[in-house]
């Protein structure tokens, strides 16, 4: 630092600071300038909050465990989801409605003869199929329906909402009227109706890998694509409209930023968290819808199980075999609960409007 006396003499009326009026800072005052914590980004800050949310973390762990189980279990369990149990190459007619970890007579003889068999962890169903592997495949089907349905909703809603919000004017007005009408349709009734209609229509069209999925599953996706995107579109449009009005967008435009840069740097980072949260909360809705459709008999195609169709099938003979309802029902509850809690956790940590 320059000595006070080295400076040229301050002339009258000049704005030059008069250093003789300043004091050196004390050690305590200097410490106020220390950086107390690292600089952080919005994303990192949100993640830190999420990691400190025990419910969300437990939910993530539970979901990961479920996903690992449904990936690994079919490799270990030697039964197929539609395979009727056979012992030593012969169909085992006694392996019907076994309780968890129970053996049929034929299997007991087979084991007594010195052979090894894989236990029926959740017993078997009325058609002599291993119930554990059916629940595993059911979870696969339900989770993938939830996942893909919410992706479809995300893509359609995002594109529609951004066009409507960014273009504005008359286009926006017309696009939003369409959304209003679709929004006021009773979704569940329309889904049932469309599933009934699409089922025979699609059965003629599909072939190859689509055939194994079953027409009902495709109609679930079609229906989601047709009806459920409106909430997402409204949300995206509303967000874009309110962000567009902000001063920093005006400032960016004033310094000459191109629309591409404004969308990339200002709009997307501001809406991405809300979109992720809504998508996470869309997955349980899709799983619920699928289980509901399975209940009314419009779910996935027969040998293929879903959690909803398993729970529904378990209603017959419920008094004697309540465990057959319990396993798929608990799995649905766990998955839906986990996604709800993760969604809530994400909202608490990433939605800036909720920060207090």
């Amino acid at each position, binding site marked *: 630092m320059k000595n006070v006396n080295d400076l040229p003499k301050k002339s009258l009326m000049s704005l030059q600071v008069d250093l003789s009026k300043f004091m050196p800072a004390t050690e305590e005052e200097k410490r106020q300038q220390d950086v107390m914590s690292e600089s952080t980004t919005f994303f990192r800050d949100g993640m830190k909050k999420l990691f400190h949310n025990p419910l969300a973390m437990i939910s993530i762990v539970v979901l990961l465990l479920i996903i690992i189980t449904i990936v690994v279990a079919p490799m270990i369990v030697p039964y197929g989801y539609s395979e009727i149990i056979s012992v030593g190459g012969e169909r085992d007619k006694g392996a019907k409605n076994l309780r968890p970890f129970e053996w049929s007579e034929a299997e007991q003889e087979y084991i007594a003869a010195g052979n090894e068999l894989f236990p029926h962890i959740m017993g078997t169903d009325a058609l002599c199929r291993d119930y554990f592997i059916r629940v595993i495949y059911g979870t696969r089907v339900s989770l993938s329906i939830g996942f893909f349905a919410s992706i479809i909703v995300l893509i359609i809603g995002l594109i529609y909402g951004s066009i409507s919000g960014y273009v504005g004017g008359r286009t926006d007005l017309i696009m939003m009227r369409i959304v209003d009408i679709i929004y*006021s349709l*009773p979704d*569940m009734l329309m889904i049932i109706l469309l599933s009934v209609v699409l089922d*025979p229509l699609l059965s003629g069209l599909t072939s190859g890998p689509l055939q194994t999925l079953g027409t009902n599953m495709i109609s679930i996706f079609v229906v989601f694509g047709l009806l459920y995107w409106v909430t997402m579109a409204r949300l995206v449009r509303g967000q874009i409209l309110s962000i567009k009005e902000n001063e920093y967008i005006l400032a960016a435009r004033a310094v000459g930023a191109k629309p591409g840069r404004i969308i990339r740097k200002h709009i997307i980072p501001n809406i991405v968290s809300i979109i992720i949260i809504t998508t996470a909360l869309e997955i349980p809705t899709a799983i619920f819808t699928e289980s509901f459709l399975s209940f009314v008999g419009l779910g996935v195609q027969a040998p293929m199980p879903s959690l909803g169709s398993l729970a529904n099938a378990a*209603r017959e003979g419920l008094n004697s075999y309540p465990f057959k*309802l319990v396993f798929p029902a608990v799995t649905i509850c766990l998955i839906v609960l986990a996604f709800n809690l993760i969604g809530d956790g994400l909202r608490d940590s990433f939605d800036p409007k909720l920060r207090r």
Partner: protein
Amino acid sequence: MTKYVIKRVIMAIVTIFIISAITFFAMNAIPGGPFNREKALDPATIEALNARYNLDKPVLQQFFIYLGHFIKGDLGVSLKNGRSISAIIGDSFPISAKLGLMAMVVAIFFGILLGSIAALMRNKWPDRVVIFVSTLFTAVPSFVLATLLLLIFSIQLGWVRVWSASSQSYILPVIALSMYPMAYITRLTKSSMLDSLGQDYVRTARAKGVASRKVIFKHALRNALIPVVTYVGPMTAYIITGSLVVETVFTIGGLGSKFVTGITNRDYTMIMGTTIFLAAVMVTANLIIDIVYKLIDPRITFD
């Protein structure tokens, strides 16, 4: 105000029209006519039947004929048993309406009660218990809950008689139907109650010595209930679709179970009639709720 109401009524009519159009054309898109039975009828009979039900005319004309009948309350006859759909709806709707209204009252009353308790005892054990239970119930599909209730209380314990013509106990179906909306209202009330308890007018009321009970009921709760009113619309939709499941599980002969059996039997006129009817109920309910909502909250402007 009048302008807003007229606009909303027109919207509602347009929606019902669109629903009936979708339903009608969707039904006509299904391959096979209503008289394609397993035992083939002779062509002359089919022709006569087609003429009887106007099926020989172009689809668009059929649609307008259907609309004309629909306005008069005539929804055709069931393809399975030949009974008039209007009569079936007339028989079964009162049961469903009773069940639905009871479930709504239970959900709203207990939801607000539990939500307020949770907000007023924030971070104490009643709050934790209420929030834990309500979070749990938002994750249980209604048919699972209904089946479990039926298994435990009717079959295993024998406390409640199974539904029949002679014993009509609404308690289990109402519980099964109201749990999810109740859990949702509880969470909604808690957060909006916490919000309004933190407002300046509540602090002012407290500071000037208004009794605590009066602050809660007159200042905090009244404002906290506005978001709850907005949920009544979606709740009506939930109760109507939920009743499809709950009525089937409890074998209640309401409109919901008629709809589900219509689907299982592929009874298209039945599906059509019930879809349009339920959709009309839903749209009307939403219309009334929207208007009431604007009436009770003076801050909302009519545009």
